[in-house]
């Protein structure tokens, strides 16, 4: 018991300092590289474009983070994003006035998908990976039936403005991202839900014994993730204009990658939602950087892969050094070679 408590204290210190910090160091380094190699990268105009694109990753990664924190994973994010964009475009039929009721309705539908995910996982004990994956396939199948594979009609101008329109140079998407971050960060720190989530993610048995109710908490994480994916999908459709099936696909990879780069453990129970910001920015700066360096999508894939492995490797080492004594299964033998390879 004392070991677990100590681990929690360590965990708090851990969150404040190392893995997330590493993520931001990566962002800073990348930013310097980007400014030096590509003229105009640091211009206000370009920064707000990069920021907006990072916001799409950041918002859905925030939802992914909440699920991962509780020990799950949500692979249905791409379908929910795509679905939100398409359903909204259909409901609005090009008229901005309809957005007033269409946006909430779309988000409620998204949350319903999340609730189904959560129910399948928490009540029926399905593996999160498979349940959300099947849900992704299911929703995409439905979407193809609805659209016949074609582009949906354009979203109304109100949505475009909400996403790309700028207030004092800051795109609307970035503002939404910031607001969601503040809410998530406060909720994680000061609500019972946030504390239960950390507890459930690190050790479900102990959490339940100490009075956490697992089902509502776990189901909520998937609802939150779907809600954020819905918001991200609506903003993204405002950015691309006319949403299409496949619009959300890149975000399967980037949402998980952003969480991992942000220093959260993919096994749950540790991490900081601010870390997802570092993850989203890292991924987006790398993406924005490549065209100016004349690199192909092939190189993007390679760089993504190496970036994920390296960042997570550093974060894992930093974390395991702090909490090694509390994680019995951690292999201690390879330590010398770790030092060499680092």
């Amino acid at each position, binding site marked *: 018991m004392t070991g677990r408590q100590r681990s929690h204290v360590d965990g708090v210190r851990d969150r404040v300092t190392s893995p997330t910090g590493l993520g931001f160091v990566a962002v800073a380094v990348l930013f310097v590289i980007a400014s030096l190699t590509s003229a105009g990268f640091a211009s206000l105009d370009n920064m707000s474009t990069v920021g907006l694109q990072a916001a799409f990753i950041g918002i859905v990664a925030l939802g992914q983070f909440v699920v991962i924190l509780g020990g799950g994973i949500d692979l249905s994010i791409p379908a929910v994003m795509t679905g939100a964009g398409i359903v909204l475009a259909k409901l609005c039929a090009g008229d901005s006035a309809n957005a007033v009721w269409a946006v909430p309705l779309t988000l409620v539908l998204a949350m319903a998908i999340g609730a189904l995910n959560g129910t*399948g996982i928490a009540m029926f004990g399905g*593996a999160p990976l*498979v349940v959300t994956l*099947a849900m992704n396939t299911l929703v995409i199948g439905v979407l193809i039936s609805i659209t016949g594979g074609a582009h949906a009609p354009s979203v109304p101008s109100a949505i475009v403005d909400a996403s790309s329109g700028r207030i004092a140079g800051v795109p609307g998407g970035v503002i939404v991202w910031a607001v969601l971050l503040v809410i998530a960060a406060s909720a994680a720190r000061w609500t019972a839900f946030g504390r239960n989530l950390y507890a459930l993610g690190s050790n479900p048995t102990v959490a339940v014994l100490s009075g956490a109710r697992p089902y509502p908490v776990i189901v909520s994480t998937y609802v939150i993730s779907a809600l954020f994916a819905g918001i991200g999908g609506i903003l993204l459709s405002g950015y691309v204009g006319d949403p299409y099936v496949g619009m959300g696909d890149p975000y399967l990879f980037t949402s998980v990658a952003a969480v991992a780069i942000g220093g959260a453990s993919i096994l749950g129970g540790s991490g900081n939602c601010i870390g997802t910001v570092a993850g989203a920015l890292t991924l987006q700066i790398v993406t924005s950087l490549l065209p100016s360096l004349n690199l192909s999508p092939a190189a993007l894939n*390679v760089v993504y892969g190496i970036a994920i*492995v390296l960042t997570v490797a550093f974060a*894992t080492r930093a974390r395991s050094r702090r909490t090694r004594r509390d994680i019995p299964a951690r292999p201690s033998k390879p330590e010398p070679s770790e030092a060499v390879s680092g």
Partner: protein
Amino acid sequence: VLLLVYAVKLPAAFTWPSLAIIAATGLTLVLVAAGQTIVVMTGGIDLSVGGILSVATVIGAKQFTESTGTIVLWIVIIVALGAIAGSLNALLCIKLGLQPFIATLGTWSLFAGIALWIQPVEGGVIPSRLLGWTNATIGPVGMPIVGIGVVVLVWLLVRRSRLVYSLRAVGSSAQAARLSSVNVNRTLLIAYTLSAALAALAGIFLSTQIASGSPIVGNEFILQSVGAVVIGGASLRGGHGSVAATTAGAYVLTLVPSVVTAYGFSGDVGTIVQALILLFAVVVVVRGPVMRAQLKGGIE
């Protein structure tokens, strides 16, 4: 669980009399999913199989010529490269202590990039000699059926071996396995290497099916291979799994779209049914062991 799987499978087999074509459609997935089963047994997951599969098809499309020697040589090289890629996965998990999901997510991106770099678009030619091999028949039995026979047979032969016990032991509890003198790191190394080598082999076979190389063709097989493993009754938490059952699972996934379209629905309905079966399987997989335990008097 298996019975259920076959119940789904049988009517399908009746609607599609030409078994060889069915076998050929599913063999790629069977090979990938067999490797995936081995990794899942250890409690891991291998997302990089998609990248490796793509790399294998593009190398094949670039390097194969009509000469038998060249073909055999490059098959060996491709499978060896796959094995190296797999050991890279294992090293990331073992030496750097990365979670398999993240490590192979990274290497998937890496390998997919390499595939795009080798050949940015679909294309290349697969020599007719190699196509001839995979379409050949031994007596009345087509090569793909033989291929599946070999996969299942090899599994039946090795399933009681030390290696498979080690795989299961590591998957159930790495610590307990280590205490009972199972070499955990070596077992993981073997698992990821086998998985990647099988994915490379699957890539070669797939290239004979699509008769070209494609840098993105592997991606759909990542999630399908995991799906096949789950329908086959394995737990993603590790410790269980059977390649034979996975083979059945792979065919459920392969056949569902054909069956659904055969009944006159469009392709996307097939996708939806696939997803529903997967969801159903997850629930049954979880309930199955519980019920079996009750039948045995609750000993498990």
